[in-house]
């Protein structure tokens, strides 16, 4: 029996890279299809940022904010809002439901590499994040008189999509602690106040000083400042400071998610 298990272990590490890659791609593809067809996710993730942007950026936005047209300024903040929503709901809601109602266990009993499960959710969220940002840009260019060069546009999209990662990690952390049915409500209780306090709905300069100072502690603030920097507004702080905040926050969330993962595995395997 000892020899049997040694031979087994030696063949263990050898899932060919091509096969591994195929699993990850399929996991991401079906996660995407699953959420695309789930209107509670796909419609609300796209609809709310777009609606807010049309309302406040295009219909009511006739002024400038800090020397920049409202329509350009709000592309940055509502994109951040949209990216955050796509990431939080894309990871936390599904994880909480699948953990709580037995589906994750079916997948864990299969030979699925555990990391593929999380990667699939993150990639899916990033596709939706990209879609939201592109839609807002399209609206801004077409109806809001926004002008941006190709490299500036690409930089904005890339920053926001990479910047969605901290919120994916936050989603995983929430997903490990929220109940299967209450997760969407829990997410909203975090998502909406956090967005408001970070100046994603109403620009920070229109908020009281106390809130402006408090915003520095919030991760969405830092992502929105990075985005605003690219469109030509923002507070002109060092980009590194913002990235450091976001990286630090991600590490913290990953720690919490890892704790949740191990607690579950402990229940399963301990």
């Amino acid at each position, binding site marked *: 029996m000892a020899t049997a298990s040694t031979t087994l*272990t030696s063949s263990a590490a050898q899932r060919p890279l091509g096969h591994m890659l195929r*699993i990850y791609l399929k996991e991401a593809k*079906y996660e995407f*299809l699953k959420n695309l067809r789930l209107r509670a996710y796909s419609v609300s993730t796209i609809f709310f940022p777009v609606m807010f942007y049309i309302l406040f950026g295009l219909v009511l936005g006739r002024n400038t904010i800090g020397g920049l047209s409202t329509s350009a300024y709000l592309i940055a903040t509502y994109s951040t809002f949209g990216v955050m929503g796509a990431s939080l709901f894309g990871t936390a809601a599904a994880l909480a439901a699948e953990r709580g109602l037995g589906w994750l266990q079916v997948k864990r*009993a*299969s030979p699925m590499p555990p990391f593929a499960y999380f990667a699939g959710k993150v990639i899916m969220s990033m596709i939706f994040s990209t879609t939201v940002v592109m839609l807002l840009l399209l609206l801004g260019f077409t109806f809001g008189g926004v002008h941006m060069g190709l490299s500036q546009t690409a930089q904005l999209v890339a920053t926001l999509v990479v910047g969605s990662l901290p919120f994916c990690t936050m989603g995983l952390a929430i997903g490990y602690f929220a109940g299967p049915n209450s997760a969407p409500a829990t997410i909203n209780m975090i998502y909406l106040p956090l967005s408001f306090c970070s100046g994603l709905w109403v620009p920070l300069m229109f908020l009281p000083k106390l809130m402006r100072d408090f915003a520095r502690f919030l991760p969405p603030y830092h992502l929105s400042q990075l985005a605003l920097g690219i469109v030509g507004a923002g507070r002109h702080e060092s980009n590194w400071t913002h990235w450091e905040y976001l990286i630090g926050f991600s590490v913290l969330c990953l720690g919490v998610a890892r704790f949740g993962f191990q607690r579950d595995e402990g229940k399963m395997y301990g």
Partner: protein
Amino acid sequence: MIATLPESSARERATGAPVVARLHGVSKNYGEIKALRQVDFNIHAGELVALLGPNGAGKTTAVKLFLGLAKPNQGTVSVFGGNPVHPEVRVRTGAMLQVSRVPETLRVREHIDLFSSYYPEPLPISETLSIAGLETIKDRLFGDLSGGQRQRVLFALALCGDPDLLFLDEPTVGLDVEARRVLWEQIRKLVARGKSVLLTTHYLEEADALADRIVVIHQGAIIAEGTPSEIKAQTAGKKIRCVTRLELDAVRRLPGVLEVHQDREALEIHTAVAEPIIRELLARDASLSGIEVTSAGLEEAFLALTRDDNGKTAA
């Protein structure tokens, strides 16, 4: 007892094939609850073994241990000579578990395509669809399926990787008779392909219809083991219901009577074999009426089995 002879031969036959999965001296506690106590249990190559027991007996716990989804407090679990959590063991097993919610916005073939991708040499999707009888509904969303169809999709996910060993945890629970028979047919096909299968169920009928060997589990311990006919002989007693003038105590003293209750105006008599007792009853009470003979439920059968264990009916 007669049962001893076939039982030992059953054991000999079973031990002939190599063991593919084993629980050895396994105990598993969930807090205060002892889900399994000192269980020894083997699955042999090519057999369908049914783990039969009432709800809460520890069937699902045993399956979870075999799948590496739980770790024993005591004892060892080995599957194909290795630890079930290893990926190289997992590619040789498939599982159908009880799940409250499956993602509903994926199509049947999409679910199967994804699970197939986890395995190095899966069955062609068309073959999986055919074995599980899903060809006509392969493009339906999971959320639009009936209960029986949903179970068949979960069954397909267990077999799509062409694993050597399958775990089916209460595969037909909540299904109507028709859907149950369809799934039985498919499980038989699997065994015909040479797979080893562990099936858990709380229907004696189901274990009888499918299994080569039945292991009866009750309150976390194995209380009986044998071929379906041996188990039925031990457990599937009869229940006689009749209206009689005879005294309860007199009936209780009849040979072969296990237990007697007064149920409204009638008596309920539990026994292994009904005919001799009916003959005796009719001989003693000509006015006896309303005779009904039914198979004792599993719960009653367990009562009989556990009582056997206490040695009362050893003679």
